[in-house]
């Protein structure tokens, strides 16, 4: 009886989420014979004790109905059941998050996908425990930072229990280069006399897909940035020149206000009453033209005291103290009519005056 364990870890990062999200951990395991009672995936922060896991997504895709369609996710707080075909996510505030996948069947193939989202990458430890006595540990660490150049330090320990794969990105990456890293290995175990034994044939493949495309896109992105900068250069130069010219010729608003105040003071000092008269007329005309039409008159309060001869007493009669509308209600149309008539008359008078001036002009100002 043999057991083929295949674990595939995929890291997909792109754009702004290069350091944060879409770290997808996919585990597919084929198990023939024996009883697999459970598998535990432990998620750690990659290298920091201060960082916290933010979200973990688990998707239950157990295919065979003979199996229990449940995944039991255990963390420190509670057990979470995920039904078949369901996806759930767990927000974890602990530094240590352990997910125990319970599978309650035998001789079938199952798979599940676990997604984890956190800044800085993940470190996942996968422990397999079969129904007998063997257990296998796969300790896979991902360190994904805001890096651009991908250097893979693949440290694969050819032991039975532990394999480690380190992926580190060492150069600062601010571009939007999508890349895809896939690390997989396959381990074949053979069952001899009630025990599993590894055949020491570890197959590890590290596949970096789209890296070249990513680099090309990065170069193109840089070239595009340079081209954009060059294209924007004339506009920037023009803005610089126009701002300089503007400051050279156009005075500031505060200076104009100060200048007007200085001129007013100077003219008032020099021209005295003449300037005051002109100012008075100008202000009055402005008030007439630009102010609202007064539609009320305030009648001041007036008291009239009369002597009541019969009772030998003073009687006070009060008037006013209120506003009176110039145009009474429901008679606005009369005001409009009057305004229209006056306007027509004024227009005719002006036309007549202009006509007379015209004839005077034709007659050569004989008058």
């Amino acid at each position: 009886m043999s057991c083929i364990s295949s674990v595939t870890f995929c890291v997909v990062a792109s754009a702004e989420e290069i350091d944060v999200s879409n770290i997808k951990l996919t585990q597919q395991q084929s198990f023939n014979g024996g009883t697999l009672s459970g598998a535990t995936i432990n998620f750690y922060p990659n290298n920091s004790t201060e960082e916290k896991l933010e979200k973990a997504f688990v998707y239950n895709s157990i295919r065979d109905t003979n199996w229990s369609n449940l995944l039991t996710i255990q963390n420190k707080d509670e057990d979470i059941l995920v039904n078949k075909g369901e996806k759930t996510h767990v927000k974890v505030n602990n530094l240590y998050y352990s997910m125990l996948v319970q599978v309650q069947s035998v001789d079938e193939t199952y798979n599940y996908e676990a997604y984890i989202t956190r800044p800085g990458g993940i470190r996942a430890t996968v422990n397999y425990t079969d129904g007998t006595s063997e257990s296998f540990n796969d300790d896979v660490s991902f360190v994904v930072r805001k890096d651009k150049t991908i250097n893979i330090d693949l440290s694969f320990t050819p032991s039975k229990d532990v394999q480690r794969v380190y992926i580190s990105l060492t150069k600062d990456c601010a571009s939007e280069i999508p890349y895809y890293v896939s690390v997989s290995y396959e381990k074949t175990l053979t069952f001899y006399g009630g025990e599993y034994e590894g055949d020491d044939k570890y197959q590890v493949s590290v596949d970096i897909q789209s890296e070249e495309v990513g680099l090309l896109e990065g170069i193109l992105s840089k070239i595009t940035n340079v081209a954009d900068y060059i294209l924007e250069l004339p506009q920037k130069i023009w803005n610089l020149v126009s701002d300089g010219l503007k400051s050279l010729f156009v005075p500031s608003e505060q200076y104009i206000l100060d200048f007007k105040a200085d001129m007013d003071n100077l003219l008032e000092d020099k021209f005295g009453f003449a300037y005051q008269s002109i100012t008075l007329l100008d202000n009055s005309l402005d008030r007439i033209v630009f102010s609202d039409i007064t539609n009320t008159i305030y009648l001041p309060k007036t008291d009239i005291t009369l002597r009541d001869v019969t009772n030998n007493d003073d009687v006070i009669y009060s008037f006013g103290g209120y506003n009176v509308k110039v145009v009474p209600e429901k008679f606005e149309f009369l005001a409009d009519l009057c305004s229209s008539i006056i306007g027509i008359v004024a227009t005719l008078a002006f036309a007549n005056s202009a006509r007379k001036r015209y004839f005077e002009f034709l007659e050569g100002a004989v008058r």
Partner: protein
Amino acid sequence: MIIEMLLSLVTNLLDILLVFELPSFPSELMEYLNSAFDYIVGGVGLLANYTPIIYLIALLGLVIVLDACMYIYKTVLWLLKKIPNLNIS
């Protein structure tokens, strides 16, 4: 900056060239005048309910402009008539 310098120069020149200083109205008289114009403006505001006051002011301005043009025209003609060689009657 250049315009600011020119404006400052104009202000200083005016201050130097205008050597006279006409007297101002006494403050009491200005108060009376202000009150009188307040009444006038108030009365015009009341009239504006029945008259298109802005329209009338505009027409009045046009009449004044026309009259001024005519007086200038007459003055120029009067001067031209004083020249015998032109023979303008």
